[in-house]
């Protein structure tokens, strides 16, 4: 029997019985919130409709949730089932999560933008609450009592009047025969038993015992291994290839050239790794060949370009600056940085006459499949894509260049192949966080009020390097934000908290400078601006003044702002991915050497689903933000990255981490993003504290390259 329910949110629910007894509840995880309802004839409701995730309850009581999003450490394989189990009143020990395969009907089967939990929150709750309703209905029917007299707890339906109770597994088959309700109420958050508590990652056991879960762990009989020699310099292409010596090496099956790739195909990883060094390739110029010195000049010049695109304009900036009592100007610059997920890029592809099989780690399985379909001219329905666990992503695996390579190579050699990148391939292979430079100007009136604000963002392959509607927009009457980009052959892409990962630092450093110039406390200065935005806004306000104000005040309170002795405090607050994070950094001086001791963070991401996972995202985000601000730099010489492995590219390590204290705002708002928002404020909090402690104003990243600062580190 199949029952269909259609709600105003287009959340389709399908109910069937499981083979062998039990209940299978399908729901449309990722349908849009379109206002117009879609009419679907239940008679046609068989597999091809937008119904794409499953909650099943087996006769033995096992509850399985299929999670559609790729897991890369954001912990949704645990958080998603928690939300369902909460509404279902399930015994958590009987819940398991499975990675769902790529399904064409998902409209958001990707990991990025800190969006998984915000996007799925209501759908997950609906699934759990609906299943609970059906189980209660089945029990009430069996006992011949009113459903309203029944309660649930720990995977049991309970009728306290009669003392009867039945486990979900025993009721699942009968529940699958019930009519799906039109609407189900959600739990009151004060009754939450799982949500908001720390719950351990369901995958821990597999991870700590070394189970092969990642893309690189995929092996199959008959599969060959391949590595690709790519042009070392951006802006070059292949002129000639001499692979004779490599082809003759042991274990090598073939060396094939396609596009700008020379693929070495062999029996084992080590065979191809060795042989690759013996492939001789000549390259020739194919575009601009740039060095970091060129970028520095390009970015500086673009700050004065007359070709910028205006992103936001409020009031009359020119007059405000002409009449200003004081003008403050500063510039900030960051270099390119690679993503460096610990698992290098890799993908398995098997192109057969009857279809294509793809297996591996990707943040965007749907786009990857579409691209492979176009590349090979194979219809998408003949392409399967299995999503493995990802050994980190940080935005790198939003690009699917490495999936296309594997597919193209398999189609050429007509074999199942795993293409693997080395760390050097990964670090030199592009898709970097763009290098960006900002110039800020602020105009203060005689009372120290911020009356004019200008931001020019210039970036390399960064079309809009600003977030024009973020704070302090709305709080300044006369404001101009514009941007201009330089197009380069160096490939760039989203890097954890795109744009804001550096803009947050630059803006919050500059606000600190302006507050100082105005003779005001940095926290009070921000609060005054928010108050101005509230009472007399300039233009549209696209952030919540109340939520930002709350994290600022809470961070000031938790850090005992301005009242602590023996430490220098720096403040920062940033809004990104719909969440708000304020941070206070505390620096102590050992002699003249500043030491970052502690970062206190207050995060408002709405409802915290898994306290343990949420803490990981905030602490990891802060440590990543701190490490990248301190050490992260990829420089170029004649188009070639000058750092290609961890001996030259410095990632933060154990002895360099500051203490981190995290507080969450408990406001019950539906969840907003958390994978990224903790990162953007960190650089600013650290730089502001270092300024307070030493008088050195850090303007460029990485901080260790700042001459005055590096001298202090060596004292």
């Amino acid at each position, binding site marked *: 029997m199949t029952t269909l329910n259609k709600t105003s949110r287009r959340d389709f629910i399908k109910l069937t019985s499981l083979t062998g007894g039990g209940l299978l509840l399908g729901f449309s995880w990722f349908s849009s919130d379109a206002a117009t309802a879609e009419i679907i004839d239940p008679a046609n409701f068989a597999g091809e409709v937008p119904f794409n995730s499953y909650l099943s309850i087996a006769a033995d009581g096992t509850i399985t949730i299929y999670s559609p999003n790729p897991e*890369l*450490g*954001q*912990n949704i394989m645990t958080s998603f089932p928690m939300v369902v189990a909460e509404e279902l009143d399930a015994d958590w020990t009987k819940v398991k999560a499975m990675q769902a395969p790529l399904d064409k009907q998902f409209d958001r089967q990707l990991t990025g933008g800190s969006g998984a939990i915000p996007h799925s929150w209501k759908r997950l709750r609906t699934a759990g609450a609906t299943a609970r309703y059906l189980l209660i209905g089945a029990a009430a029917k069996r006992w011949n009592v009113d459903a309203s007299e029944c309660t649930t707890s720990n995977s049991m339906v309970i009728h306290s009047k009669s003392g009867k109770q039945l486990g979900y597994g025993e009721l699942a088959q009968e529940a699958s025969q019930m009519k799906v309700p039109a609407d189900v109420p959600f739990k009151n958050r004060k009754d939450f038993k799982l949500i908001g508590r*720390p719950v*351990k*990652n369901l*995958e*821990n*056991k597999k*991870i*700590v*015992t*070394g*189970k*092969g*879960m*990642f893309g*690189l*762990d995929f*092996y199959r009989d008959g599969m060959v*291994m391949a590595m690709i020699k790519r042009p070392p310099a951006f802006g070059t292409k292949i002129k000639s290839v001499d692979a004779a010596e490599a082809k003759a090496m*042991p*274990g090598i099956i073939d060396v094939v050239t396609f596009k700008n790739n020379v693929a070495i195909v062999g029996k*084992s*990883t*080590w*065979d191809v790794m*060795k042989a690759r060094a013996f492939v001789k390739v000549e390259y020739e110029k194919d575009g601009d060949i740039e060095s970091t010195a060129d970028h520095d000049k390009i970015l500086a010049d673009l700050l004065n370009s007359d070709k910028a695109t205006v992103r936001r304009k409020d009031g009359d900036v020119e007059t405000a600056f002409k009449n200003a009592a004081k003008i403050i100007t500063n510039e900030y610059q960051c270099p390119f940085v690679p993503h*460096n*997920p*610990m*698992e*290098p890029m890799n993908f398995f592809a098997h192109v057969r006459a009857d279809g294509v099989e793809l297996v591996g780690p990707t943040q965007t399985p749907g786009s990857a499949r579409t691209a492979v379909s176009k590349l090979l001219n194979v219809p998408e329905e003949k392409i399967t894509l299995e999503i493995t*666990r*990802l*050994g*980190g*992503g*940080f935005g790198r695996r939003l690009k699917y260049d490495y999936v296309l390579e594997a597919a193209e190579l398999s189609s050429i050699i007509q074999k199942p192949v795993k293409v693997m990148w*080395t*760390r*050097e391939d990964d670090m030199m292979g592009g898709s970097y966080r763009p290098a960006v430079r900002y110039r800020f100007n602020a105009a203060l009136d005689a009372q120290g009020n911020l009356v004019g604000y200008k931001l020019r963002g210039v970036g390399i392959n960064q079309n809009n390097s600003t977030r024009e509607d973020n704070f302090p927009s709305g709080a300044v009457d006369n404001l101009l934000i514009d941007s201009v980009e330089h197009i380069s052959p160096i490939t760039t892409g989203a890097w954890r908290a795109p744009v804001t990962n550096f803009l947050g630092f630059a803006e919050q450093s500059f606000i600190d400078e302006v507050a100082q110039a105005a003779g005001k406390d940095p926290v009070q200065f921000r609060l005054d601006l928010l108050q101005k935005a509230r009472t007399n806004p300039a233009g549209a306000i696209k952030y919540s003044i109340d939520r930002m104000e709350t994290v600022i005040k809470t961070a000031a309170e938790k850090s005992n702002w301005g009242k602590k002795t023996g430490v220098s405090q720096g403040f920062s607050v940033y809004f990104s991915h719909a969440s708000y994070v304020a941070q206070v950094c505390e620096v102590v001086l050992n002699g003249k050497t500043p030491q970052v001791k502690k970062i206190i963070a207050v995060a408002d991401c709405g409802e915290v689903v898994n306290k*343990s996972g949420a803490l*990981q995202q905030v*602490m*990891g985000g802060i*440590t*990543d933000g701190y*490490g990248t601000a301190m050490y992260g730099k990829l420089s170029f010489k004649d188009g070639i990255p000058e750092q290609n*492995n*961890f*001996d030259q590219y410095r*990632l*933060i*390590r*154990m*002895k360099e*981490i500051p203490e*981190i204290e995290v507080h969450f705002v408990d406001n019950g708002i539906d969840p907003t993003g958390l994978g990224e928002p903790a990162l953007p404020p960190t650089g600013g909090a650290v730089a502001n504290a270092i300024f307070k402690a030493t008088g050195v104003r850090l303007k460029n990243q990485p901080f260790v390259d700042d001459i005055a600062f590096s001298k202090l580190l060596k004292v």
Partner: protein
Amino acid sequence: MPVFTLQINKKEYKADVAADTPLLWVLRDNLGLLGTKFGCGIAECGACTVLLDGKAIRACVYPVSKIKSGQKITSIEGLSENGDHPLQLAWDEVDVPQCGYCQAGQIMTAAALFNSKPNPTDKEIDDAMHENICRCAAYHRIREAVQLARTKF
């Protein structure tokens, strides 16, 4: 190609590979032991850490031919019979993993530390774990888990 006889996780394995093949690729490509990870290939990140006679080595740069007859290799799969080594339990208790890719190497580095110093100081723990990179930056919990495991030996 020479055939190498290896004692791994209390079992004997034979691998028919080139003498310069790093132990990492023998474990992964030839023996199907996938817990030991490839991260950098130059002994910088520690994702490939295994124990050789109880001491940490970086399998990505350790040629299989350098392993002497009778030497015992322990990879993450052999750290305990049932995943219940104090470090594995502590890793779950503290809920350390984010992406999880580097964690086997982290645990093996900590295991080597406990082999040489059963009761390390906090500083000795930090010094030892400084050798391994966690890109998710789960360092606070890695530290906490090693400190917790210290109490269980």
